[in-house]
């Protein structure tokens, strides 16, 4: 009897131990390249490129952690620039002697007051660009393109396949910030101690008419959307923690001002905001209403810079920083997604996978027409 009992115990234990080995850290997929180090050159570089018939330039710095893209055409002329170092927000001069800031504005010289046209672009995790724009080109890369993808057709009143839309959370379970509270930060790192950020923490910087608002990722991780306003321009900051993408949309559409909320849906692992007036669902990365009364309407995008807090403090010495006084009790010192921003897991399935880069490498995607091109921080 005693022996039989021992056998039962051993059998039970062995089942338990065998089962416990199923733990995964989310790194099942072998990726061809590691996540790049955040260090690099503090030099600001300018890259000229031609994509989809548009002559554009991308200005960036790997250590300063920013990339922005502008059309080189100004008043029918193709402009030539040289980068300027250690003078942020000034990043370049043109061959006529004007200096230009990171927002694409000439601040002196013969072109003073002129504004370059931003190219539709924003930073996001590499995998998300591969999912939305299969086979997209990477600037200055010799890596073989694994697939060109196939066209994706909408179904069931959606401009995207409805059965590819997944539920990440219930509607409004992730609360947007609709009455944002700001603290004015006038000099480097002097602000509300409750809102102090490490130099390396990522933020979004929005500039409207010279007024700068800064939105830390550590707050956006919990809310994803901030409905804000500067100088009567109503806009929504939309951030997806799963794709690492930040976009800023004008909230006034055809004369009607709305607010955006988190629908809880995900498409290609990317947030699907909904506007609360029409109830329409939007795809952040497609920048398009994909379902509802506004289906087919494109978002009106506002220029956005994603960078780290140290660089944001150099770009602007007088900005309004979103505070944790959001009206919600959240643990803003902690990322609710844990190590997700740096591990190789992709939580929700995507249409296309592209392993040329680490899935979480942050790249600038430039979108022209229906095509996109990726620019890596390591190119700067």
């Amino acid at each position, binding site marked *: 009897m005693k022996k039989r009992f021992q056998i039962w115990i051993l059998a039970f234990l062995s089942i338990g131990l065998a089962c416990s080995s199923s733990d995964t850290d989310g790194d099942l997929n072998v990726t061809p390249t590691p996540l790049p180090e955040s260090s690099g050159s503090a030099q600001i570089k300018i890259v000229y490129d031609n994509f989809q018939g548009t002559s554009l330039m991308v200005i960036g710095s790997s250590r300063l952690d920013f990339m922005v893209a502008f059309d080189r055409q100004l008043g029918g002329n193709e402009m030539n620039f040289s980068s300027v170092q250690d003078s942020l927000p000034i990043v370049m001069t043109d061959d006529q002697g004007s200096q230009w800031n990171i927002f694409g504005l000439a601040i002196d010289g013969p072109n003073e007051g002129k504004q370059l046209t931003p190219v539709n672009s924003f930073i996001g995790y590499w995998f998300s660009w591969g999912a939305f724009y299969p086979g997209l080109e990477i600037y200055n890369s010799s890596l073989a393109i694994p697939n060109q993808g196939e066209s994706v057709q909408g179904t069931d009143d959606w401009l995207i396949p409805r059965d590819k839309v997944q*539920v990440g959370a219930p509607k409004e379970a992730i609360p947007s910030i609709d009455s944002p509270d700001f603290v004015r930060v006038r000099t480097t790192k002097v602000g509300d101690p409750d809102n102090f950020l490490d130099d390396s923490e990522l933020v979004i910087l929005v500039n409207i008419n010279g007024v700068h608002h800064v939105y830390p990722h550590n707050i956006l991780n919990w809310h994803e959307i901030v409905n804000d306003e500067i100088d009567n321009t109503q806009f929504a900051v939309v951030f997806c923690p799963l794709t690492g993408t930040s976009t800023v949309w004008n909230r006034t559409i055809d004369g009607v001002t709305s607010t955006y909320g988190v629908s809880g849906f995900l498409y290609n692992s990317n947030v699907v905001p909904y506007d609360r007036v029409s109830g329409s669902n939007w795809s952040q990365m497609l920048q398009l209403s994909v379902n509802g009364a506004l289906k087919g309407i494109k978002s009106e995008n506002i220029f956005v810079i994603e960078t780290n807090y140290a660089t944001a403090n150099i770009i602007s010495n007088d900005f309004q920083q979103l505070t944790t006084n959001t009206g919600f009790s959240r643990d803003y010192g902690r990322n609710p997604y844990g190590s997700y921003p740096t591990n190789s897991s992709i939580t929700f399935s995507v249409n296309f996978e592209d392993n040329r880069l680490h899935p979480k490498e942050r790249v600038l995607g430039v979108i022209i027409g229906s095509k996109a091109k990726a620019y890596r921080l390591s190119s700067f």
Partner: protein
Amino acid sequence: MLIVLIPLFILGGQLKLSGQACCTGGAPISTNLGVQSFQANQLVLDVSYDYNSLRDLYAASKNLHDSRRTRTIKTLFLRGSYGIDKNWSISVILPYLWQEQVIRSDFGRINQNTEGIGDLVILAQRTLINNHKNQLLIAAGPKLPTGSISQKDDEFGILLAPDLQPGTGSWDGIGALSYSRFGLFTPTTNIYGLLTYRYSFEQDRNDGQQKYRFGNELALNLGISYSFQVKTWSINPSLHYRYRSSQSDENDGFDFPNTGGDWMYLVPGIRINSPKGVIIHSSFEIPLHTDVTGTQLVTSQKWNIGITYPINLKKDKAFRIKYGK
């Protein structure tokens, strides 16, 4: 015997095993297995109702005190157990669930409801030791994917999240080990321990486009019960500690955010045994400690009430033959 079992329970508690986090896809089976001894040729029917109210939003072990989001899971369990002989018995457990999720925001109240038959569990149970001092039982069996995993959002027809579905969609394995020590301090005082484990397999969702796997789950119950008589009725109050540990779910092979964690509860309960063998039982869970992965709604209040009705088939058969009924 205790020398063997205590390390087993400690080891079990340390294993980072699995389970469903804030809310289960399917019924809370692991805490409702009802592993106990059955007499030979005895059929025991049990009907119980489980009410689980999740109103506390936690980030790791911190209560966020956010009342915007709640969930209620009500489950009716039908359980039939049959004693094949003095050592072997078999149990079948069928749950029926009603789930309601509510989000209250400045833009209105959003409800999501699902209901349906959950996953059927079949357990074979073996009595290893049964004497006046000790009882040791072991049980194992499959959980069948009988519950629906295809319920959709009313407004858009989008497949609801796995944890809101009545079933998990997977064949799972369940094991349990139960030990009781009788008459430890007084003749009617017993201590007991129950270790349960559920191993989950992967399921296909969205017509095979998505592979989802609920985390494995381990639950450990350690308690004490006492028995006293009130006229011809036997009353058994009990108090036990419950530890539940759950792995994160996996979606397409990767950990799914905001699932998995560790929970501890204090569970007072009572069993009232009538002279005719009918038992009324009830328990109430008081959360002691919560440490979840990410941010999750957790149980704020949970109670269970049920009635057990034993039928001695051999006796009834003899009765029918003798009296021709």
